[in-house]
Every structure is written in structure tokens, then in C-alpha cells.
């Protein structure tokens, strides 16, 4: 088995162990879907208006969960030292971590998004776009979030910083996705927004590994 494969296998297991795997993210997601209507109250139709938006937001937030556990444990227990002595550059290691994050949390969330959206009373016709935007968006969130996590780990200061650093970076994809979904649901041209989301996701996948690698190096010293 190639080094990358071994590492991916390990990371997948760790994401599972760490967050209970897809179930944490999904649980959180479901929790939002369950809680929001309760909190909004029974008045019919109210919720339906924002169903897509709420689902999309919930997805974005769910992807932020457990980010602070992406690099910190490996740094604290010394695993990062050994990963740095491995055959792959740290940038690659970071990318694989984010990929695992996406496979375990992002993809299931994307699959669940349409369901949640409909469950919240949104128009079923928006479902396909929820799925598409969900898949691309969660990919972007995973990698951008990973970059934030890697930067923050040097500060040994978890949460606040991650939030402050990652939120600005995920706003653009959130906007693009929101627009795409909205446009698709209301029959307006949605392609450009989706294209932008895809471009952002691609850019994130392509560039953030470099940032992660540099950030990890920096944290090790």
C-alpha cells in the first residue's frame, strides 16, 4: 500500500474515532434541522421560506466542527514529528487530512442536505442543487478550514482563533452556494454562481495544501 494510501486510511479512522465519523456531523446537522423548526414555532410556511438557506448554513457550520482536532492532537503527541519524517511533504499530509475530513463528514452532509432542506419545508425542486452545492461547498470548507486549523495550531489556542480566521475565508463559498441554490430554486440562471463555487473549491484544494504545509512546519519548530 502506498504511503498516501496508508496515511489516508489512518486519517479516515482517526476522523471516525475523533468525531464519531459522519454521525457527529450528521447528528449536528439533524440537530439543527430538528431544533430550528421547534425554535421558529409552528406557524406554517414561515420556515419554508428560508429552508434552503437554513440547510445550507447548517451544512457550512457542521463542516467547521472538530476542525480544532485536525492537527492539534498530532502536534501535541508528537505524531506530527514522525509524519514530517515520512516520505510525503507536509503539504501532502495536510491535503490528505482534509480529504479524509471531507470524505467522512463533507460527502455525507452533502447527501443529507437535500433531505434536510425538504424536511424544513423547502421546495423539492431545489434538492439537486442542494446536493451539488453541498458537495462542492463542503470540499471548499474542508480545505479552507484545514488551513485555518493549521495556522492556529502554532498558537496553541484552539477555538476562537480558528473561528476568527476561518469564517472570513468561508464566506465567499457560502455566498456563491447560497446564490446558486436560490437561483436554481427560483428558476433563474444558476450556472455562474455554481461555477464560482466550483472555482473556489478547486482553488482551495489546489492552494491550501501549500499553506497547510508551511503552517505545520512553522508550528513544529
Amino acid at each position, binding site marked *: 500500500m502506498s*504511503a498516501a494510501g496508508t496515511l489516508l486510511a489512518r486519517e479516515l479512522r*482517526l476522523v471516525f*474515532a475523533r468525531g464519531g465519523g459522519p454521525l457527529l456531523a450528521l447528528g449536528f446537522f439533524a440537530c439543527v434541522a430538528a431544533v430550528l423548526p421547534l425554535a421558529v414555532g409552528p406557524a406554517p410556511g414561515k420556515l419554508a421560506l428560508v429552508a434552503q438557506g437554513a440547510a445550507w448554513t447548517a451544512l457550512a457550520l457542521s463542516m467547521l466542527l472538530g476542525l480544532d482536532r485536525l492537527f492539534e492532537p498530532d502536534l501535541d503527541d508528537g505524531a506530527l*514529528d*514522525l509524519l*514530517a*519524517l515520512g*516520505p510525503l511533504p507536509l503539504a501532502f499530509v495536510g491535503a490528505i487530512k482534509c480529504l479524509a475530513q471531507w470524505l467522512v463528514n463533507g460527502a455525507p452532509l452533502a447527501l443529507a442536505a437535500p433531505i434536510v432542506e425538504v424536511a424544513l419545508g423547502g421546495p423539492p425542486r431545489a434538492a439537486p442543487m442542494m446536493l451539488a452545492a453541498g458537495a462542492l461547498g463542503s470540499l471548499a470548507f474542508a480545505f479552507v478550514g484545514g488551513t485555518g486549523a493549521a495556522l492556529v495550531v502554532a498558537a496553541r489556542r484552539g477555538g476562537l482563533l480558528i473561528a476568527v480566521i476561518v469564517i472570513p475565508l468561508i464566506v465567499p463559498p457560502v455566498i456563491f452556494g447560497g446564490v446558486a441554490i436560490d437561483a436554481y430554486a427560483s428558476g433563474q440562471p444558476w450556472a455562474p454562481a455554481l461555477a464560482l463555487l466550483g472555482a473556489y473549491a478547486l482553488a482551495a484544494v489546489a492552494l491550501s495544501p501549500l499553506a497547510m504545509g508551511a503552517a505545520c512546519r512553522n508550528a513544529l519548530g
Partner: protein
Amino acid sequence: MITALTGRDLAVKRGERLLFEGLDFDVRAGGAVVVTGPNGAGKTSLIRAVAGLIAPVQGRIGFHGPAGPIEPDEARRAGCHLIGHQDGLKGARAAREELLFWTRWTGGGAASAHRAAVLLGLERILPLEVRLLSAGQRRRLALARLIAAPRSLWLLDEPFVSLDGAARATLQEILRRHLEEGGMVFAASHEPLPVAAQILELGR
């Protein structure tokens, strides 16, 4: 395959504190260096510098192969292995999982991992979660990971910690054999190593 390690005029800083400077050392295939000195002298820092995890503020560390100098990063990626104060083992995973992963990661195979486990008497505990292991068992697991990997330069930070008599003997034997086979050992320790070694005394 690293056949020589050299340090020239090294200086390492932590925070604003200069730990040591003007440090030189040479290790050839089959040779060993032992770093000694009081707590906080900089032994761990020196080892981490050799591993490329800390950048020395001055001086250079060189790696040489059969065919002349090797680019440091490359040498570390393919030829170094490290045992530090922290062992990087994940408490929630089975000992076997961890051993196999790290062995593969450092270029070894399941077979060599198994051999290492047997050598260190770990068979019985391989199925256990790492967090359940005793301190010494955990240390042995880290050692198994080290010897299972086909790497010639061993960086050992107090390798004997929390090992019992039997395990100490085994490790000493292992070190001897590694050197005979043309490996290299760069160790920090508060107790003497059983092998002829250049002593680097820090913190005086």
C-alpha cells in the same frame, strides 16, 4: 541510505535562549553519538534539529550517502527515524494498527513489523488499545516501530526510559546489531550507552 552525518558549528535557540553554539560532530556508518547534559541543556533540541524539526540559528547539518552528499530533506524523508519524549501513538487505536501504520509510513512492511513485535515481546498486547498499555509496553511499541523501519540513522531521545531490565538488555542488543549492520545512532541519554560512542556534553 545515509552513511555519514556531520554537524558543523551548530547553534540552537529556543525562544530567546541560546542553548548551545559552536557544536561539531561526525558520525560514520556503524558509529554512535551520545548527547549528555543536565535537564534543559538542549539534548532534545539538538536531536530535533538533526531531524530537521528545529532550524539551527547557525551552522549546518550534513548528510552523506555512498554517492556523496545528500540533500538534507531527502535524507530525513528516507533515512532518519526518531524516538522522542512523546511517542506519537494514539491512545484510542489498537497497538497493532499503530505499529503497522508507522512501519508502512516509514517504508517497512507487515513482515518486519511482526518481527519487531516478536523481538520486543509485544505479541500478546498488539490487540489492546494503546491507552491500556503500561508505560513500558508503550515504550516498547515505539521501539518496535523504530526497528521495523528500514532506516539507517536512529535519533533516540532517552530510549531506555521506563523499560524493565529485560527490555533494556534487548534494546542494547538491538543497538549493537544496528551498528554492526552499518546503521548510525544519535542518542540523548542520562545513562551510558552500551556501545562505543562519541560523547557530546551540553550545558557546561
